[in-house]
C-alpha cells in the first residue's frame, strides 16, 4: 500500500540534507554558552556535599569580600525572590531551585555566587562556610518506604511514599487462576541518564525598569513552561521572554529544565546584571534533574498451555530521588503500551513511588516506556524457556494481527496500526541464524560465547498529556492540551518562511518543516527558510517530547498551508481573470485548468499580494500579504474515566520494532561485545529516512549504554559514586557497532501522511534484545538477565550462581 502512495510524494521520503548542519559544522551554532551580553556576570553554585542534612547556617562574608564578586546568596534568602519550582506532583512536593534549610541529595544547590568571571565565582565558592547537621541518608528504596522520623525527606508528607496505586483492567484473576504457566521474575532497572554532551545552562537578563526577564536557555517547552517559571519569579507571563537556542542534545532531559533558568533569572535580578549559569559536568550529573527511572519490578505473565498470554501483572517500586517534579508521568507512559505488541486481555499495574536522598527523576528517551518494554520482553523470553516454545514462535503466536487494528489494550489506550509479523520477517531476513549457530560452536573453542537476542516491542509516539496525571486521585493540574503551532509567510519575492517555536536539540525540525511545507505547497525546499521565534513572538508549542514533533509539525503545517493555498489561488485566479475553481496549483504557479499557458508564478502572486492592493477587489478576501498560522491539537486523545477503569486514548500513534542482536562474550573476562545488530522499525510513513535512521542508531547507542555500561551508583551514605564521565561510562566508538537499519511502513490512519514518531524507538527496543543475547550465550545453563547493566562483574556474579540446566 505504501509503495503506491509513496509515488505521489515529491519531498516526503527524500533524504533532504539538513539546513541545521551548515552552521553546526562551521562552529557557528547558537548554543546557550555562546551567548554573551554586555555587563554579563557569571554564576557558580555551591553544591551540598551531604545527601541529607539540615542547613544550620551559611556564612557568605568571606565570599562577598573577594574582589570581583558581585553577589553571594544562600538558599533561604534566594527563596524570598524566587518561589518553588513548577511540579506536577499533587499535593506538591515542594522543591526550591536552591535548598531552603534542608538538603536532600548530594549536589543540591545551597548557595550561589555572581562574579566577574566563572573563575572568580568558583574561588568564592571555596570561601563559603556552611554548617550542616546531618540527617539519616535514605538510599535504599525499599527501606525508604517504611522510614520514619528524620528519615522522611519531606515531613509534611508524613512518609517517603508519594504515590501508591493499584489498577486492574480485564479478567486478571481468571487469567492467573487458569494459567498453565505463571512466569514470575523480579527485575532491577538501573538509574541512568540522557547525558547530553552539552550540560544545561541559562543566560538571563533582567530589565529593572520594565521588570522583564529575557532568557536564553537550552530548555524546551518554553511556551508552556514559561508561565509557570514566571509565577516562580513573581512576574506575569508577558514579563518573561524565552529565546530559542540550539541545544546540544536533550534526549528528554532538558524538556523539564526549570532550575537552571530560575537560578540564573533570580541571580540576574538580585545582581542587577545579566547572569550566565552553565552547569559543569559534575553539577549536571548530581543536580541536573537528569536521572531516569530507577525501578524494582515483581512481574508475572500468565500463559495458557498452548502458549497464549492471558494476563500480565506488574508491581513496581520506583525510586524517584528527592523530589517529584514529573509526578508518575513515566508510568502513564509505560501504560501506553504495557501489553506490548501482544494480545494480553488482562493487566494489573501496582505502583509505589518513593523518595530517597538522590537526584530527582526527569524524562529520558523512553520516559519509562523503555522499562516496561524490557520487563515484558524478558518475561516473554522466560515464558519461552518455561513452556519450551521457541521464543520467535511464541511471539508470533501472541502478536496482534494486522487485521485487528485499531486495537484497544486493556487499560483503554488504542494502537492505531501495525504489521508485526512483517517487521519480524524483515528483521530475520537480515540474519543467517544457522550460520551464527555454527559460529556459536566454533567460538567455544576460542573461549568465546556467542548469543543471539530478539526483541519485538512497540514504540508509542505522539505524547498527549493525560498520562502525567491520570494515576492521581486528585490531580493538581489535569491538563489535556498538547498543541503545536507554526506560522508561515510567503514573502514578496515568493520565498516561504516557516517559523517554529521549539528548539533544535538534535532532532531535525528545520529539515522536516522544509520537507513538509514543500510537500503541501509543492514548492522547492530551496525556496523555504525556517526560523525560530522567541516566546513573546511565538505561538503555543509543546515541542519535541514523547516522539511527537514531526507528527505535530505536519498537522500544524497542513493547517497553515491550507490557508495559504486558498489565498494564493484567490489572488492567482483574479490575476488570470477566472474563478477560483477554474485554476490549479503546480510547480510554484497557479494556472488555468486546461490551459497551462495561462499561469501566474507564486513569486508574481506574492509580489502582487504584497504591493498592489488596488489591483484587487476591496474587502477581506484580498487583504495584503500571504501569511497564515495554525495550531494543531493532538490528533486523537480522550479523557480517562473518573474511576480510571478506562484511561482513555492517550498514546495511540504506535510504531513497532524488532531488534536482533548477536553478542560475543569473552569467557575469561566476561566482557560482552556486540558483533551484529539488526533494527527494523515501523514508524509509519517516513519523512526523511536518513534522519530516522540517525534517531534509531542514536537511541540504540544509548540503549547499549543502559544495557552494558551506565549506572549512577550511590554509596550507603548517599554519595554519588559515578559522578564523572570517567566513572559513568557512556559508549565510545569502540562499543557501538555498525547497525543494519531497515523499515516497514504502516501508515497511521490518524496523522498527516500516516507519519508516526520515531525519536525514542531505538532505546525503546534495544535493552531486552541485548539481555536476551546474553542469556542465549549461556543457553541451557539457567542464566537470566534481570538486572542492568550487565557489566563484566555483574555477569561474573550471574555465572557464579547459574549452572548446567537441569533438563
Amino acid at each position, binding site marked *: 500500500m505504501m509503495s503506491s502512495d509513496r509515488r505521489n510524494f515529491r519531498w516526503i521520503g527524500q533524504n533532504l540534507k539538513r539546513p541545521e548542519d551548515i552552521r553546526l559544522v562551521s562552529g557557528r551554532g547558537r*548554543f546557550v554558552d555562546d551567548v554573551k551580553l554586555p555587563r554579563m556576570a557569571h554564576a557558580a553554585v555551591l553544591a551540598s556535599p551531604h545527601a541529607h542534612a539540615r542547613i544550620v547556617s551559611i556564612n557568605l562574608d568571606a565570599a562577598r569580600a573577594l574582589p570581583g564578586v558581585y553577589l553571594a546568596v544562600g538558599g533561604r534568602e534566594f527563596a524570598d525572590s524566587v518561589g518553588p519550582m513548577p511540579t506536577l506532583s499533587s499535593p506538591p512536593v515542594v522543591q526550591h531551585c536552591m535548598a531552603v534549610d534542608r538538603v536532600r541529595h548530594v549536589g543540591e544547590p545551597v548557595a550561589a555566587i555572581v562574579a566577574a568571571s566563572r573563575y572568580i565565582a568558583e574561588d568564592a565558592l571555596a570561601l563559603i562556610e556552611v554548617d550542616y547537621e546531618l540527617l539519616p541518608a535514605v538510599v535504599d528504596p525499599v527501606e525508604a518506604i517504611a522510614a520514619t522520623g528524620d528519615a522522611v525527606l519531606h515531613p509534611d508528607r508524613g512518609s517517603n511514599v508519594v504515590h501508591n496505586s493499584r489498577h486492574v483492567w480485564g479478567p486478571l484473576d481468571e487469567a492467573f487462576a487458569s494459567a498453565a504457566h505463571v512466569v514470575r521474575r523480579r527485575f532491577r532497572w538501573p538509574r541512568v541518564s540522557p547525558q547530553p554532551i552539552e550540560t544545561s545552562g541559562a543566560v538571563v537578563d533582567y530589565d529593572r525598569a520594565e521588570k522583564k526577564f529575557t532568557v536564553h536557555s537550552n530548555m524546551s517547552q518554553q511556551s508552556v513552561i514559561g508561565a509557570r517559571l514566571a509565577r516562580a519569579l513573581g512576574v506575569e507571563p508577558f514579563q518573561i521572554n524565552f529565546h530559542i537556542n540550539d541545544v546540544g542534545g536533550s534526549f528528554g532531559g532538558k524538556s523539564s529544565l526549570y532550575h537552571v533558568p530560575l537560578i540564573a533569572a533570580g541571580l540576574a535580578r538580585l545582581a542587577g546584571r545579566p547572569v550566565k549559569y552553565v552547569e559543569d559536568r559534575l553539577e549536571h550529573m548530581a543536580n541536573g534533574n537528569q536521572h531516569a527511572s530507577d525501578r524494582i519490578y515483581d512481574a508475572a505473565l500468565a500463559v495458557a498451555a498452548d502458549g497464549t498470554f492471558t494476563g500480565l501483572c506488574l508491581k513496581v517500586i520506583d525510586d524517584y530521588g528527592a523530589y517529584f517534579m514529573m509526578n508518575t508521568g513515566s508510568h502513564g507512559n509505560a501504560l501506553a503500551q504495557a501489553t506490548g505488541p501482544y494480545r494480553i486481555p488482562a493487566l494489573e499495574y501496582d505502583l509505589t513511588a518513593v523518595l530517597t536522598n538522590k537526584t530527582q527523576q526527569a524524562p529520558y528517551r523512553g520516559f519509562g516506556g523503555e522499562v516496561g518494554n524490557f520487563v515484558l520482553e524478558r518475561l516473554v523470553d522466560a515464558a519461552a524457556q518455561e513452556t519450551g516454545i521457541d521464543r520467535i514462535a511464541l511471539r508470533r503466536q501472541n502478536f496482534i494481527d494486522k487485521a485487528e487494528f485499531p486495537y484497544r489494550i486493556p487499560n483503554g489506550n488504542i494502537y492505531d496500526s501495525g504489521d508485526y509479523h512483517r517487521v519480524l520477517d524483515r528483521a530475520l531476513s537480515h540474519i543467517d541464524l544457522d550460520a551464527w549457530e555454527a559460529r556459536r560452536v566454533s567460538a567455544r573453542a576460542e573461549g568465546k560465547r556467542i548469543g543471539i537476542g530478539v526483541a519485538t516491542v512497540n514504540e508509542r509516539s505522539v505524547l498527549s498529556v493525560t498520562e502525567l496525571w491520570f494515576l492521581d486521585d486528585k490531580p493538581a493540574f489535569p491538563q489535556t492540551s498538547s498543541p503545536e503551532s507554526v506560522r508561515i509567510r510567503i514573502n514578496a519575492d515568493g520565498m516561504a518562511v516557516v517559523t517554529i517555536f521549539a528548539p533544535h536539540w538534535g532532532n531535525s525540525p528545520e529539515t522536516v518543516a522544509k520537507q513538509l511545507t514543500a510537500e503541501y505547497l509543492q514548492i522547492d525546499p530551496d525556496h523555504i527558510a525556517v526560523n525560530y521565534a522567541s516566546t513573546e513572538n511565538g505561538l503555543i508549542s509543546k515541542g519535541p517530547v514523547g516522539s511527537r514533533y514531526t507528527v505535530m509539525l505536519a498537522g500544524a503545517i497542513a493547517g497553515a498551508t491550507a490557508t495559504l493555498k486558498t489565498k494564493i489561488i484567490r489572488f492567482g485566479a483574479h490575476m488570470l481573470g477566472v474563478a477560483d475553481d477554474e485554476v490549479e496549483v503546480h510547480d510554484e504557479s497557479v494556472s488555468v485548468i486546461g490551459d497551462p499557458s495561462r499561469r501566474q508564478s507564486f513569486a508574481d502572486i506574492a509580489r502582487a499580494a504584497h504591493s498592489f492592493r488596488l489591483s484587487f477587489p476591496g474587502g477581506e478576501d484580498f487583504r495584503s500579504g500571504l501569511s497564515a498560522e495554525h495550531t494543531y491539537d493532538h490528533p486523537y486523545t480522550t479523557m480517562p474515566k473518573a474511576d480510571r477503569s478506562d484511561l482513555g486514548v492517550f498514546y495511540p500513534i504506535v510504531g513497532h520494532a524488532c531488534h536482533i542482536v548477536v553478542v560475543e562474550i569473552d569467557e575469561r573476562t566476561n566482557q560482552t561485545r556486540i558483533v551484529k545488530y539488526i533494527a527494523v522499525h515501523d514508524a509509519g510513513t517516513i519523512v526523511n529516512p536518513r534522519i530516522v535512521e*540517525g534517531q534509531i542508531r542514536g537511541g540504540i547507542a544509548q540503549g547499549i549504554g543502559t544495557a552494558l555500561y551506565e549506572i549512577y551508583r550511590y554509596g550507603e551514605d548517599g554519595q554519588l559514586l559515578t559522578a564523572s*564521565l570517567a566513572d559513568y561510562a557512556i559508549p565510545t*566508538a569502540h562499543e557501538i557497532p555498525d547497525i543494519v537499519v531497515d523499515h516497514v511502513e504502516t501508515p497511521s490512519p490518524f496523522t498527516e501522511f500516516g507519519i508516526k514518531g520515531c525519536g525514542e524507538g531505538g532505546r525503546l527496543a534495544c535493552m531486552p534484545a541485548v539481555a536476551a543475547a546474553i542469556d542465549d550465550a549461556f543457553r541451557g545453563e539457567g542464566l537470566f538477565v534481570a538486572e542492568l547493566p550487565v557489566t563484566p562483574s555483574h555477569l561474573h556474579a550471574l555465572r557464579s550462581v547459574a549452572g548446567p540446566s537441569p533438563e
Partner: protein
Amino acid sequence: MTISVTINGEPIAATVEPRLLVCDFLRDHLGLTGTHIGCEHGVCGACTVLVDGRTARSCLMFAAQLDGAEVETVEGLLLPDGELSPLQASFRDNHGLQCGFCTPGMLMTATELLRQDGRLDREGVREAISGNLCRCTGYETIVDAILTAGRDQAEETA
C-alpha cells in the same frame, strides 16, 4: 602573562592569567565559540583543537602554554570562499551529526587523521575518534563521513 599565538592563521598577542584554560581563552576572550566545553575533565573531546597540528584537549591546557604555537579551531575549516570544506560537507552529506555539539571536536580529530599518511579503514577511524564522545549518532555515520572525506581526498591527490 603575555603570549603570541597564531589562531587559524591570524597572529594574536594577548595577556592572560596563568590559570586561564585554552577553551575559555578561545571562547570568552577571542569569541571563537565553535570550540565546545562538554566535561572539563578531558573525557568527552568536544573541546578538541589542533595545537601545532596535533589534537589537544583545550579544557586541559592553559592558554599560557600556547605561546609561539599555531592553533586551529573549527572556525578555521571553512574554505576561503566560505564554502564548507570537503570534511565539513562530508559530515553533512553522511548525517554525521545531530545536535552538533560534539561535532567541532570530531572535525578537529578527523582533520588530524586525514593529514596522516596511509589508508583509512573503519576500525582505524573508530580508534581515532574513540576519545570523542557523541551521544546522538551512534558514531556509524561519523565514521562514514570521515571515510568518505578520506577517500575523496585520496582520489584528488592520486
